[in-house]
């Protein structure tokens, strides 16, 4: 059963937060989310998050861009209208290949970069006019927030979290 209440524990130091995450994980509680004002190195490992596959997508987007560039240069310069432009050999794609390399390179980078960024936006659900999701405005400034779902164990969680150095603990309705 999905719980309707969550506990919010606030921290004001990233080292304390890291230790708290490890302590909560050691007690086998599920951490729903951690909100930080800046990237905390090692937090993903401590939370046990799976590594990102964004780099792998970028690799395939790059290959797509390269293929597109090869197809485009071949179609336009060799197949469709093979003109003699300044004596460059347009008999086959390979003979004129060096001239196409700058385009091939740039399109590879262009596809890899832009499609990866768009993938990132989609997977992270970020877009203009999207409603902000931070539960407390202080988490964008100087506080860290750990969110743990509650299953009739408020007392136990509160005592655990206060032991880890939380500066404020609230039980709130999940939105």
């Amino acid at each position: 059963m999905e719980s309707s209440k969550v506990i919010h524990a606030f921290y004001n130091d990233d080292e304390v937060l890291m230790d708290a995450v490890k302590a909560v994980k050691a007690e086998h509680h599920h951490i729903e989310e951690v909100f930080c004002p800046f990237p905390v190195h090692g937090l993903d490992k401590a939370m046990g998050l799976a590594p990102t596959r964004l780099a792998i997508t970028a690799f395939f987007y790059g290959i797509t861009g390269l293929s597109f560039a090869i197809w485009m240069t071949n179609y336009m310069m060799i197949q469709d209208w093979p003109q003699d432009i300044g004596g460059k050999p347009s008999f086959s794609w390979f003979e004129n290949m060096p001239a196409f390399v700058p385009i091939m390179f740039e399109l590879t980078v262009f596809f890899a970069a832009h499609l990866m960024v768009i993938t990132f936006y989609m997977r992270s659900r970020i877009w203009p006019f999207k409603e902000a999701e931070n539960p407390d405005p202080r988490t964008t400034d100087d506080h860290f927030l750990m969110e743990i779902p509650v299953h009739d164990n408020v007392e136990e969680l509160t005592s655990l979290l206060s032991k880890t150095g939380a500066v404020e603990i609230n039980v709130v309705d999940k939105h």
Partner: protein
Amino acid sequence: MYQFSGKLKTLSLALILLGAIGIAFSFWSAPKTLEAAKEIIAQQSSHGDGHGTSHEEVKTDAHHDVKEDNHASTKESHSKVESHGENHDDDHAEHVFHQMQNKPWAAVYVALFFFLGITLLVLAFYASQRVAQSGWSVVLFRVMEAITANLVPTSIIMIIIVVTAVMHVNHLFPWMGDGIFDPTSPNYDPIIDGKSWWMNVPGWAIRSVVYLAIWNAYRWFIRKNSIKEDTAEDGGKTYKLNYNISVGFIFLFMISESMMSWDWIMGLDPHWFSTLFGWYVLASLLVSALTVIAFVTIYLRSKDALPGVNDSHIHDLTKFMFGFSVFWTYLWFAQFMLIWYADIPEETTYFVARFNEYKLPFLGMVVMNFAFPILLLLNSDFKSLPWFVVIGGIAILGGHYIDIFVMIMPATVGAQWSFGIAEISSLLFFLGIFIYATFSAFAKANPIPKGNPFLEESEHFHYYNIEHRGEGSGDHH
């Protein structure tokens, strides 16, 4: 302290001996007289293999064109060549004879330049790490210092090559030939004569010695002072002195490296010039140097001789290997494409000669130096796997040996090239010297540079997204 094992010592001495025998044999078996060369040429053409015919092509395509160009300006000698069709065969035989005589010299020169250059770039990279005050590489300082010990023997052999060239014992550099600068001589070459303010034997020899002197002086100083740093405890005075000297060395190195590449490599093709050539040679040697650092580090680590080195250090070295492989490709392509695109005959002959006679090595090295590293070493997880780094590194080192080969061979032996006893023996010879110099130097100093203020940082160096094998991951943040 590391002990230079007897096994490795025997191996290196065996390599030196084997190489020396092979080199001696290749010098002995090179044709001594024009008649002997003619016999070989006759044999080649009677076999009817592609070699003889393709050779003819290159002669007319590249070399002869240049020759005729020169002769055009001196009208009398030009018409002489035209009218005496008989002479043509003799000219050809003599040309081939010189190339055959060059073969053992060129084989030694390629291997020598490869090892000398790699050692030099290890030294330059080491200096750059001191100047950048880099935190990660301090535990590798003694590895780099040990490799630079190879600079001394290779410099001595380079001096021998310089002396033999000056004394006309070898004909590696065509502009050193008889009568090139003499307008009354049939060998007169006005193009080269126009460059005589730079290309003259005394200037070349003096410059060569000066480069070697600068590099060896810095190596001698920094090695001595780096060991002194261990026990100095003078509030960083020795460290700062080493820093300042390294700044000065990098300045001198950049100048001397450019000029060295003109004198020692571009001078082999005295009619050709390229502005980014110095950078190109630098990139080729730098990526090889980083690979060699990685190889020696992986080997020493497997012998438990490098307690401070962890997987993150290997990962960083591999990132450098990857990055500078791409940098090399960028320069290789920039040089090739600019010349291909504009197609000015005086520049294009360089690539025509390479494309006609060296197609496989010329194109193969792009695969080995670019396609292989980019596909093998792209994945972050693979960058700290020793066996993966070794596979990628072998492709890189092999590729850059071929790169040097393709820079030197077409100008010295032309169509007579092969990869045989002379080339392999030279490689083994210099490999043996390298192993002996490197590991005996590494055994002479503390493997951890204790006095360096960045040592602590280096020992705890951790690249964020890799898991270290065989050690606790608790000591990082």
